[in-house]
């Protein structure tokens, strides 16, 4: 497998009246071609800001972006908007959480999909329409010719989400970023959409970065998982390793939060405390106030990524106290 995206020490900071928000605070990760990589975390962990930075959607002044995003031998950090436009939507596409607000209510589906096609592909009108109908069929939209002329409000959330996937696929991108694509959907519709995504990924051999807070979805869909907390990546693992032998206490806490059938009548395991607000990150390891294994060191220094195996790493002093500075 070849590397398709290499993010090195990425930082995205925002200045707000309440202080500097270090939304993404030095994360590094790689993505291989043809894999589904899940970025998991709760609110404020920085997963959305990470992909927005990768897509160049963060306006640089006033925000501050440092580090490297290496894609095809180019560093996307610092690239001009003009250059980004050749990549964004064409080579790296994005699917958003709310299908209802991603589409303009004033234009038909066909029009909006054509817009995307025309911006990036050199097809004539006939070919454009054919390609659109074809990709709508691929995402299981019934009667695509009819849908072509319909407006977003005439469709359900699930259907719009599939159309959004279609929109992302038209240009046959290298990387698809899916930002909580099923969070707003009912669970039965979510199952359908996830199945489509899995089938399409196999067919097109796409590389997908999948962002979610739902560990059930992660288990169903992804190959590798990166867990984020408070602006940092705290664990990286293959999906089965993450679920079978989670290393970071936060990952363990999250996995334990699942409401299992056998807990009925008993107290549910939980993680103490709350996710810290972005301008109030604790000193040292950001998880330390909530961690059942917190040591003195954890309150002082933020742990680097410690290698547990070739494919498994965790940013936790439990796995390498000897590496302290």
């Amino acid at each position, binding site marked *: 497998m070849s590397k398709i995206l290499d993010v090195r020490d990425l930082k995205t900071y925002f*200045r*707000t*009246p*309440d202080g500097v928000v270090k939304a993404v605070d030095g994360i590094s990760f790689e993505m291989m071609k043809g894999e589904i990589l899940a970025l998991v975390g709760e609110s404020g962990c920085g997963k959305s800001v990470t992909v927005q930075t990768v897509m160049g959607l963060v306006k640089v*002044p*006033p925000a501050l972006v440092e580090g490297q995003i290496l894609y095809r031998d180019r560093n996307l950090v610092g690239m001009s908007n003009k250059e980004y436009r050749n990549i964004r939507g064409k080579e790296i596409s994005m699917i958003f959480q709310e299908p209802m607000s991603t589409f303009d209510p004033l234009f038909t589906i066909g029009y909006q999909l054509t817009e995307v096609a025309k911006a990036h592909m050199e097809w004539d009108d006939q070919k454009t329409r054919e390609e659109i109908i074809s990709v709508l069929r691929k995402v299981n939209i019934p009667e695509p010719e009819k849908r072509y002329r319909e407006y977003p409000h005439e469709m359900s959330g699930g259907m719009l989400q599939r159309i959004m996937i279609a929109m992302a696929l038209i240009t046959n991108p290298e990387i698809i970023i899916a930002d909580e694509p099923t969070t707003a959907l009912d669970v039965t519709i979510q199952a359908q959409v996830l199945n489509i995504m899995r089938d399409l990924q196999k067919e097109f051999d796409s590389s997908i970065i999948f962002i979610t807070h739902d560990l059930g979805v992660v288990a169903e869909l992804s190959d590798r998982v990166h867990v984020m907390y408070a602006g940092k990546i705290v664990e990286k693992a293959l999906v089965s390793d993450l679920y079978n032998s989670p290393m970071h206490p936060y990952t363990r806490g999250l996995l334990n939060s699942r409401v299992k059938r056998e807990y009925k009548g008993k107290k549910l395991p939980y993680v103490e405390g709350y996710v810290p*607000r972005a301008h109030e990150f604790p000193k040292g390891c950001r998880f330390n106030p909530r961690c059942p294994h917190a040591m003195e060191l954890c309150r002082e220094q933020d742990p680097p990524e410690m290698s547990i195996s070739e494919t498994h790493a965790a940013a936790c002093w439990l796995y390498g106290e000897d590496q302290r500075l």
Partner: protein
Amino acid sequence: MEGTRKRIIRNFFKHKLGVLGLIMLGVIYFIVIFSDFIAPYNYMTSHRNFVYAAPSKIRFFDDEGKWRGPFIYPITRTRNPVTYRLEFTEDRSEIIPIKLFVRGEEYKFWGIFKTDLHLFGVEASTDRAMILLFGADRFGRDLFSRVLIGGKVSMSVGLIGTFISVFIGAIVGSLSGFYGGMTDVLIQRLIELLRSFPRIPLWLALATILPPNWPSTWVYFGIVTVLSLIGWMGVARVVRGMVLSLREKEFVLAAKVSGVSNMKIITRHLVPNTISYLIVVSTLSIPGMILGESALSFLGLGIKEPMTSWGLLLKQAQSLSELESHPWLMIPGIFIILAVLSFNFVGDALRDAVDPYRAVEKV
């Protein structure tokens, strides 16, 4: 995280124009509040010697170049035998010093206590010399004093009128939005009916209803009432819209489920959550009121003599030829412009400060 109020105040001060407007308003209101003290004369004091006199030239050095402090020369009025125009010539023989804290005419400070202390003035009888910073009008009255005292009316009409119309509008709008149904339908149709009348003719019509033999204070309150009766409708409609959406908010439902009475829900939850809007709309409505009063008075339908307002003062500046020879009569207009601009600046800045969706901060 800071409180909303702090954030709003902070956002407001980022607006340079808003701060400027606030300062200007501060100055204007200060002058108006202390108008009786700052003005050298009462608004009625006049002398025919000074009819249409130009603004006094304040000098500091006499003809020999000696420093004498601020002073004026007395002026005498003569008629030019050739042009038949009235001319004023300075009598350089006498120096009339301008003093601070002089004893002048007696007045009642806001009707509370009597005093005769003025900020500045000349110790001379009015037939000999008058300090006319803005010149004099047709009756030889000091325009500066009249502008200041007229300011009391102009600046207060705006405030009181706006307060009344926003108060009525908020109540009507809340009831309309909260209860819905027939109440809402009736109130809305009524508002639409009233609004379809053209505003200015309606004002004029209502103003003429005021009996001509009313004393001028009653006329003042009559004008205020007239102005506010038109203004409340716009507020009512917007408040109704806000209440309609607030009504479905979960904290309102929670209060309802807890057994809180409807009246308490309206006063404790709905109205306070519309305050930001009400403050902004008030600030932006005041200029309309000031202009409305000015317009009415200018047309002779508003404030009556002996009270005065900026609009009434402007009435004297109606013909172009008069303005050519006595341009200082326009000065009240400048004050109106300053007041209106200041309120608009402040209102715009407030609106931007309050609107959370403009929270993208500039670094």
